């Protein structure tokens, strides 16, 4: 359990396996609140915050393998051999192995389409052994609707034991059964 406390009177205890929707007014606020959530959660589990961004969020000067290994390698100083095992595990679940996987690992993000980048950030979170998942509305919309089944299954398994916070504009779709995170009512000032 962790307390997500943001400016503007937002307070929410995050429990494993629960899904939360942080309501924002506009795109700019959404980005700011995503940053704020990452800032609060990063010290609690360095290198284990899975940031799932709709645009991909991969570094253009690193190859795919380097990109996916970066957060776990930086914060948790895991050996590259260990990370490679998790890398192969994750892609095996997505049905990608052998030569195709080797080619993907050596590719630069600029050569990939948006859907592939969205899959890759999911794999990155898997390699991080993420204890908190932070997604934006765009990425969450993709995984909930148009993502391949293998990606959906992997995501469902990952969210069983960790809290997921989706930062989105407006209220969530009621069909998603998510807990809304709203600012606390103002305390009366005497």
């Amino acid at each position, binding site marked *: 359990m962790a307390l997500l406390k943001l400016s503007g009177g937002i307070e929410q205890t995050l429990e494993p396996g629960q899904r939360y929707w942080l309501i924002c007014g506009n795109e700019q606020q959404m980005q700011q609140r995503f940053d704020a959530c*990452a800032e609060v959660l990063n010290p609690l589990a360095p290198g284990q915050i899975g940031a799932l*961004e709709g645009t991909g969020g991969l*570094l*253009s000067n690193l190859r795919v393998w380097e990109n996916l290994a970066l957060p776990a390698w930086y*914060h948790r100083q895991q050996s590259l051999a260990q990370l490679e095992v998790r890398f192969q595990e994750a892609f095996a679940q997505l049905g990608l192995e052998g030569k195709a996987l080797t080619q993907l690992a050596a590719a630069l993000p600029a050569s990939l389409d948006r859907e592939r980048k969205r899959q890759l950030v999911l794999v990155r979170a898997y390699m991080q052994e993420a204890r908190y998942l932070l997604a934006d509305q765009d990425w969450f919309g993709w995984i909930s609707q148009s993502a391949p089944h293998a990606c959906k299954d992997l995501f469902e398994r990952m969210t069983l034991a960790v809290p997921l916070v989706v930062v989105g504009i407006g209220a969530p779709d009621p069909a998603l059964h998510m807990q809304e995170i709203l600012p606390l009512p103002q305390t009366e000032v005497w």
Partner: protein
Amino acid sequence: MLRRLFSPVLDPLSGLRHAPARRVLLKQIYFTGNEAALLVLLVGFALGGIVVAMLHGQYGQSQEAALRLLASLGFKEISPLLAAIILVARSSSAVASELATMQVHGEIRSLYRMGIPLGGYLIMPRVLGMTVACVGLSFYLAVAAQLGGALLGAGADVTYQVSELDRMLTLEQVLTCMAKAALFGMGTSLLACHVGLRVGPYVTDIPKASSRAVVRGLSAIFVLDFMWSLWLS
């Protein structure tokens, strides 16, 4: 107290504990230093020959005096300056455009979200890498200039002149060369990072950052060199 005083320097340096930051540092040294080494050696060799030829032909200096003057000029002034100019032309623009691209495409934000510090992962390895590379390149350039000068001045007797190199060089000249190169390398790399990270949100800002890094880098080198001459010479 001491820790707080030096924290702006020590905190980013502590990033070197992390393997990915060390990798960025080594890559920077490779691209800035190794890949420019041949160019610098050629420039140095030619420069030494030109200087000795001019001293010989126009001012009638003796061979040994010309080489002594070349050592003093080369190590204390020309080599750090030329190496820094080559560094700015090759690497400042590359660093600035790389960081500007990351900024424009929201990659700096992604790093922040992964909890990876900008100073420790992006800036410090580039600054340290370019500084180390500039010191190495200056030294290579100065030594190559001395060899070029010796070859042109002495012809077949070049081995004698090379063996006499230690008599012509002083420790102060070598240290000045390295200190100046470190100053120029650090100054230009900091400027390149600053320019690259302060771009606007548009793709058209990337080439602007690149050219700005070169122009400001060149200006910075001459300003720093002038200040050095004013206070330390």
